[in-house]
């Protein structure tokens, strides 16, 4: 493989988006969780919800900050590294990104200030409204970004050619492209699962040290409830999204399933070693006929294999095949964890079940891994196109040299390694501390001048009374 500007730009975009997607996939769910916690505190005045809110809002603020920084870099790359894509598709896709910034991003950024610094200043009602607006902003952000990405997967509502540029002729069709609803549901549910797994892991970690910690026990039960409900729903959303792929991106489906031959009664490959040069699998562990049933609804359904597409129109198979299996495998593990947790709640043993708590801690990062795997399936599976069937990736790159991209890629690697390692370590340290009741309450005031050397020492009660002598 030659490391030219195209390959280096793809590596740079993949690297930066893999870092970036970690943060929104966490903050989308966490913002909703914070709104639920504050709502429950307002309703019940149970101090546990307030303590949990004040703990998780710190994690949210840090994650949001890192998401902003890594996200702004993404949009600039569309100009620096993918200027042909921007020039060709900008009139169609540009407004979607603009709406994301105007309607969502600024909504989040504006009311985050109230969330963090204004509870006493604006009062409980307006503060809760701010929290809800931030949560709504994160979901709106997801709406526009998935809308833009779905248009790149299944473009509709546009006219023109790559040479003369694309223009929108029907904005509703651009925004609500055919695969958009299922992909939005899949992404939002993935974000909720990711958050539930992180909250469960942090809470379980605390409970392993002290099983009587009320706040962590409550947070763990809430996470289990989310996992038990959302993980099975995600399986359904994923299946619907897969049906979309079959209809609109059959080459991607063939790569996901390592189908090389167009036929009925396709097998389902549990594991395989696909090889593009061989145009087949070196070995495979399969269940006969089930592949047609899963992807097409009947074993008699003919499913297109990669032989239906010219070699230059096929996506990379190996990485798409295995990324999909990693995502689905982790999804099944999440369903199992949710049901196991529901069982422990029913038995009343959640906070004391050491094996379950350790499993929760181990599963903590899997939401992020599943999100990145799913993103790889979506993006690598769309290759060799950047806009499916319209603009090839190799035709979308900026006319820049490999040296310039190498330098920026190196800078990204170094800066991200420093900035995000420090950020991630700080978040992990916060999580390890856990929610502490009363952590935000002001210390008792002492009538002493600031800066006094013995300011922290207990106050002298004065000479004892005669009766005490």
């Amino acid at each position, binding site marked *: 493989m030659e490391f030219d500007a195209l390959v280096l730009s793809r590596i740079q975009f993949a690297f930066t988006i893999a870092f970036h997607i970690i943060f929104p996939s966490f903050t989308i769910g966490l913002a909703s969780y914070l709104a639920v916690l504050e709502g429950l505190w307002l309703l019940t005045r149970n101090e546990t919800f307030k303590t949990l809110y004040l703990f998780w809002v710190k994690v949210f603020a840090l994650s949001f900050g890192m998401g902003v*920084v890594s996200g702004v870099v993404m949009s600039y790359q569309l100009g620096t590294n993918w200027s042909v894509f921007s020039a060709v598709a900008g009139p169609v896709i540009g407004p979607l990104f603009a709406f994301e910034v105007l309607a969502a991003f600024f909504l989040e*950024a504006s*009311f985050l200030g109230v969330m963090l610094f204004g509870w006493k200043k604006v009062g409980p009602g307006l503060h809760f409204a701010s929290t809800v607006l931030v949560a709504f902003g994160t979901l709106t952000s997801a709406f526009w970004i998935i809308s833009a990405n779905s248009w790149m997967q299944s473009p509709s509502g546009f006219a023109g050619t790559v040479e003369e540029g694309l223009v929108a002729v029907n904005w509703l069709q651009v925004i609500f492209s055919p695969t958009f609803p299922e992909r939005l549901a899949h992404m939002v549910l993935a974000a909720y699962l990711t958050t539930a797994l992180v909250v469960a892991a942090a809470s379980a970690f605390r409970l392993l040290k002290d099983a009587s910690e009320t706040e962590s026990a409550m947070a763990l039960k809430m996470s289990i409830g989310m996992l038990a409900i959302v993980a099975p729903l995600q399986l359904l959303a994923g299946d619907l999204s897969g049906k979309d792929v079959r209809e609109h991106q059959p080459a991607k489906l063939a790569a996901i399933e390592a189908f090389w031959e167009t036929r009925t009664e396709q097998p389902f490959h549990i594991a395989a070693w696909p090889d593009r040069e061989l145009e087949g699998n070196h070995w495979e562990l399969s269940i006969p006929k089930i592949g047609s049933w899963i992807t097409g609804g009947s074993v008699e359904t003919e499913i297109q294999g990669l032989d239906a597409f010219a070699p230059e129109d096929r996506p990379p198979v190996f990485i798409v095949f295995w990324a999909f299996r990693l995502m689905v495998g982790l999804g099944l593990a999440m369903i199992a964890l949710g049901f196991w947790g529901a069982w422990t709640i029913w038995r009343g043993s959640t906070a004391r079940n050491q094996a379950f708590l350790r499993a929760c801690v181990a599963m903590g990062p899997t939401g992020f891994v599943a999100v990145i795997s799913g993103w790889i399936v979506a993006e690598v599976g769309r290759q060799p196109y950047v806009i499916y069937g319209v603009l090839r990736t190799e035709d979308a790159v900026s006319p820049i040299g490999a040296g310039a991209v190498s330098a920026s890629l190196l800078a990204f690697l170094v800066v991200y390694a420093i900035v995000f390692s420090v950020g991630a370590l700080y978040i992990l340290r916060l999580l390890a501390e856990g929610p502490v009741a009363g952590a935000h309450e002001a210390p008792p005031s002492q009538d002493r001048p600031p800066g006094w050397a013995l300011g922290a020492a207990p106050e002298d009660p004065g000479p004892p009374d005669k009766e005490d002598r």
Partner: protein
Amino acid sequence: MRDIIEGPPEPETPPRPLHRRLAWFVVLALGGMAATGAVAYALRALLGLE
């Protein structure tokens, strides 16, 4: 972080006047927006974009 993030008012504290709460709401919202804009433009300048 502990001192910066503000907790809820104490239960016995009387609420501030509505106009002051609304004024803080607007000031903090605009401050958040300005801070985000500053980060974006700083990154833009760092990348050498016009």
